[in-house]
């Protein structure tokens, strides 16, 4: 297996863009990415597109060649990967396998989602198709309600408080306010976060990520050739994908995500590091409770301690281990199919010291965790300066 590097990264802002269709979004991110490196597009040998629900959101299928051909990347294998909100994390993982295995030298990954052309109730319904339609969804569950049930049980078992959830929202809004590419650039107070409109008890509007349009792109190459393409390669130190039950009611313990633990352990092993070595992270805060549980499952804190960990400020921009310095899905936005590669772009930006006022102090080793559904897919990537 060869060492692999990210040699280029580029993304659109995340937000509401009625003037851009799904292909235009993907092409914009792809062009920014191509402009970020010395990679002639004719040299790209394989193309992956992460997308959750283009067919349902905008009616378009066959998205991978639809985008690759529009980017002038002709004739290569073009493959769409769907894994709910982990679609482009999974696409990134599969692109990495091709480069690591020596099958191809230059592989491009684009993640895209166009969500805002549908009204919120329809978006809720489309997102719910990532759950178990034969069970939980037929009973009326939404993704917010599934994570609400997770939060309810976490509170019951570990004494996690509503304030802990809201502290995650306050922190991620504070970081997002500094991110020019974020959808919601405003700070909120703990009081505001606690008093949001109820969505699914105990989660309110401020506990939920946003409905967004956006795209993100990266190019992978073997580390030994990376300097041909960029002066600032970022090494993929460890990466793994894992899976678990789609239905929440099939999981023996809903306060933990086994796929996150598995992917995390494998990625740590590959990188030769432990959780204590991770200096900053982009975690999948689709709902505030998800970030809290991710800090536990990835070993940043012990089980049940994620709430106080968020509340005590360790994970703010100025904290000892900044989490979601981008603003996270909560504030940066969550165009679901773009989120996984978006997180990779955020790590690359930090490691290259290009994050401006959001720049984290210790930036040599970062982790991205991309979750699909209520935990049925997880991809963990560890990126480093060297």
């Amino acid at each position, binding site marked *: 297996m060869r060492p692999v590097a990210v040699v280029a990264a580029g993304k659109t802002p995340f937000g509401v863009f009625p003037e851009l269709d799904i292909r235009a979004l993907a092409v914009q991110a792809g062009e920014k990415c191509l402009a970020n490196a010395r990679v002639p597009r004719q040299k790209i040998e394989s193309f992956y597109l992460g997308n959750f629900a283009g067919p349902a959101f905008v009616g378009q299928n066959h998205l991978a060649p639809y985008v690759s051909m529009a980017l002038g990347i002709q004739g290569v294998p073009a493959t769409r990967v769907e894994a709910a909100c982990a679609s482009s994390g999974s696409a990134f993982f599969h692109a990495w396998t091709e480069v690591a295995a020596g099958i191809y030298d230059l592989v491009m990954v684009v993640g895209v989602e166009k969500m805002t052309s549908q009204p919120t*109730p329809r978006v809720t319904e489309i997102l719910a198709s990532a759950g178990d339609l034969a069970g939980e969804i037929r009973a009326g569950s*939404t993704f917010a309600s599934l994570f609400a049930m997770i939060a*309810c*049980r976490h509170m*019951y078992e570990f004494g996690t408080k509503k304030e802990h959830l809201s502290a995650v929202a306050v922190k991620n809004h504070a970081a997002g306010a500094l991110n020019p590419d974020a959808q919601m650039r405003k700070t909120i107070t703990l009081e505001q976060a606690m008093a949001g409109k*109820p969505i699914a008890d105990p*989660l309110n509007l401020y506990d939920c990520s946003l409905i967004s349009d956006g795209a993100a792109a990266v190019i992978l190459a073997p580390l030994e050739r990376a300097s041909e393409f960029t002066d600032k390669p970022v090494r993929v130190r460890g990466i793994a994908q894992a899976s678990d039950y789609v239905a929440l009611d099939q999981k023996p313990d809903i306060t933990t995500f086994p796929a996150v633990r598995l992917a995390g352990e494998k990625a740590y092993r590959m990188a030769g590091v432990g959780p204590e070595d991770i200096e900053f992270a982009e975690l999948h805060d689709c709902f505030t409770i998800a970030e809290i549980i991710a800090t536990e499952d990835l070993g940043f804190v012990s089980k049940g301690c994620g709430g106080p960990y968020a509340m005590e400020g360790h994970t703010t921009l100025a904290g000892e281990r900044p989490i979601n310095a981008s603003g996270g899905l909560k504030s940066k936005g969550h165009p679901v199919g773009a989120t996984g590669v978006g997180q990779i772009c955020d790590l690359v930006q930090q490691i290259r010291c290009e994050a401006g006022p959001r720049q984290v102090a210790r930036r040599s080793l970062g982790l991205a965790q991309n979750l699909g559904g209520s935990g049925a897919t997880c991809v963990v990537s560890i990126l480093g300066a060297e």
Partner: protein
Amino acid sequence: MRTGTVYTETVIYSAAPAFAADVPFQTAIVALEDGGRVTGRVLGDRVAIGDRVIEVETRDGVPFFKKA
């Protein structure tokens, strides 16, 4: 009718179009006495974790529970 204990629950205020007329409504994962868990709706009084519930009806394959 099946009986069980509430493993976790929520009250939904924002739903997909097919359930919009029902909000707010409670859903729960119920640990069934005979083993296994199922996601169902709750009718009547709100239930909490640990409450005993009994299935009162099934609509389109979805179990509806009430506090026992």
